[in-house]
């Protein structure tokens, strides 16, 4: 289980040396290691099927292994991106060595908690990991120690803490329901066991449990109206953190919800979970779209776009069925790729302009064409323009919605249109036009951006067969 061993060690080491000049490279190195381990793991799972570790405390199946790989990958590229970014921050005096040390060790610790949450088989540990993830990211968000970042971190902590508390209560209830069936020992919280006996779980308790779990983890997914921490945290933290928040944390939280959904669906006959998820998903999409149309701060805007897309994914999983689940997983993938890519470019852009206010960022394409085009293409992609992958998943989601829940289609399309208009009208003047800002001391690392966009593009035009089988497997597991 190198997968989360590496980052754990990494965080420990970086906690010591994180302030050195070489720290970013060490950071990258550890992320790389994690990624390689994840790839190995993936290969194993693809070849030998689901596997357990440490007497079934850990458990890998197609569903989580694909998120594991994604997480490791995005973590790696973000680490790559943060090398020059943090150097610039340090030169600009925003980051002092102790803060850098904190940042790096927390970064690794964060990816550790992510992977732990993903791979654990124990719903309790899942909760612990999520809470730990919250704590680490709180530190990451507040790393600048500015008034704004403190406020953001405070809100983030309180809101998510409360939310997570709900989730804990849900877990308790789940445990309570489970132990009636399997008796009270630790095994009663192992997801695999629960999955095996989910049909016998008591409906009323499970219903309550899911309600709490959904609200709890839904807070971390950023579903409206539990989303209020999200834009602040994204806007005020360092950009790499915004990238991982959008790209990873939300995914993992959603993953937790999915695990619970599987159990609950097994226990209940009613489409309760589906309806809940569809309702909140739709609400998030619509509200976020309108929020998008009034943003001034670039990172804040893309944070809202994350809310919108998470809502879309939640809606997709809520609809269920092979196509919708497939689409949801696909959308998770492309969203975290594209969104993190966008945050990379945005990071450079705002570093150049020295502000995150969109009206003061102009003519990127002139200063640094790659950043400009990266942001342009990224936004185009995130807005669901073909030939990028986002369109593929949105297409699938929409056609499923048209077939099964046609009442929802107008809302979805309306909000997609509004979102399109809003984001495009902000991004165009930022990318195009004239400007007077100069280049940065450290050349930005833009390979990640274009790698991400490239993959998204590929997924839009051609989904390799093993990938699609893998998605299908996962979709089936979610209960397609």
């Amino acid at each position: 289980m190198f997968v989360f061993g590496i980052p754990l060690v990494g965080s420990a080491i970086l906690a010591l040396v994180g302030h050195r000049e070489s720290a970013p490279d060490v950071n990258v190195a550890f992320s790389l290691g994690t990624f390689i381990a994840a790839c190995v793991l993936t290969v194993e799972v693809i070849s030998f099927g689901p596997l357990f570790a440490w007497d079934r405390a850990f458990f890998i199946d197609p569903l989580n292994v694909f998120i594991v790989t994604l997480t490791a990958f995005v973590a790696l590229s973000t680490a790559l991106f943060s090398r020059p970014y943090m150097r610039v921050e340090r030169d600009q005096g925003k980051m002092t060595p102790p803060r850098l040390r904190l940042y790096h060790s927390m970064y690794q610790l964060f990816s550790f908690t992510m992977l732990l949450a993903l791979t654990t088989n124990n719903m309790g540990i899942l909760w612990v990991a999520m809470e730990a993830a919250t704590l680490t990211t709180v530190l990451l968000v507040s790393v600048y120690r500015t008034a704004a970042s403190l406020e953001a971190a405070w809100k983030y902590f309180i809101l998510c803490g409360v939310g997570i508390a709900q989730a804990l209560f849900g877990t308790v209830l789940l445990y309570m329901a489970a132990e009636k069936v399997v008796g009270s020992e630790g095994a009663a919280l192992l997801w695999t066991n629960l999955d095996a006996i989910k049909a016998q779980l008591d409906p009323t308790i499970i219903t309550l449990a899911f309600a709490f779990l959904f609200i709890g983890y839904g807070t971390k997914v950023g579903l409206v109206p539990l989303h209020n921490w999200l834009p602040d945290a994204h806007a005020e933290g360092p950009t790499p953190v915004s990238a991982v928040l959008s790209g990873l944390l939300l995914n993992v939280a959603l993953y937790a919800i999915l695990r619970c959904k599987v159990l609950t669906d097994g226990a209940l006959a009613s489409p309760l979970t589906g309806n809940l998820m569809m309702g909140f998903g739709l609400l998030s999409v619509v509200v976020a779209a309108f929020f998008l149309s009034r943003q001034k701060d670039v990172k804040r805007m893309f944070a809202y776009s994350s809310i919108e897309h998470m809502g879309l994914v939640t809606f997709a999983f809520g609809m269920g069925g092979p196509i919708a689940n497939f689409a949801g997983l696909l959308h998770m993938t492309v969203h975290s790729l594209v969104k993190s890519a966008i945050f990379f470019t945005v990071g450079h852009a705002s570093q150049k302009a020295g502000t995150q206010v969109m009206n003061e960022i102009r003519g990127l394409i002139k200063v640094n064409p790659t950043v400009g085009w990266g942001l342009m293409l990224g936004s185009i992609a995130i807005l669901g323009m073909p030939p990028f992958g986002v369109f593929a998943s949105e297409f699938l989601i929409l056609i499923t919605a048209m077939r099964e829940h046609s009442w929802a289609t107008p809302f979805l399309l309306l909000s997609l249109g509004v979102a399109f208009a809003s984001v495009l009208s902000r991004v165009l003047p930022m990318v195009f036009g004239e400007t007077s800002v100069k280049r940065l001391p450290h050349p930005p690392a833009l390979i990640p951006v274009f790698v991400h966009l490239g993959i998204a593009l590929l997924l839009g035009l051609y989904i390799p067969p093993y990938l699609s089988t893998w998605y299908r497997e996962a979709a089936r597991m979610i209960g397609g």
Partner: protein
Amino acid sequence: MSGLASQLINLFAAVLLLLAFAMISQRRVVSLIHLYTLQGATLTAATLVVGYATHQPHLYLSAALTLLLKVLLIPWLLHRVIDRLSVRWDVETLINIPTTMLIGILLVILAFHLALPVSQLSSTIARGTLGIALACMLLSFMMMITRSKAVPQVLGFLSMENGLFFAATAATYGMPMVVELGIALDVLVGILILGVFMFQIREQFDSLDIEHLEKLKED
């Protein structure tokens, strides 16, 4: 025997609920912390009883944990914080106390109503207590909403945690050990971070009034 135990547990549950109400109605920060300590103590006791009644050794451990954390460590930390920051008063609440109480009662009713079907199914000796735990949770949630200073908010958060613990203990004889440990760790780290935050907030806004924390919004 178990009858006695369950009565005891119900008693503790009632006490917990009482304390929750008390916390809502309490204005002074110091006494809030005292109440929180009491809550912790009650929780410990309840855990012990349950553990004794059901012969679940690991509950003793968890009771010990609770004692360590919620009766000794955290209150001590909080006391240090408020001494350092010299915030002994939380003058005004956002909603005045009587209204809060009324809403609180409604919440309790709701919680019982929700928990009733569940607790009927529950086979444990502490059947009625789930509703109380839920009620405690909701009450402290409401307390977080109504308080406008940082420390009381944190206290609300913590007592929420207590409610959860009680639920875990009463309804399921506690979570698996590893989970308990994890949760405890999280709570500890959380409270440490919060402490640090309060100092930072203080030095940023030279007050712990979270009305200062309203800059980030949709304008």
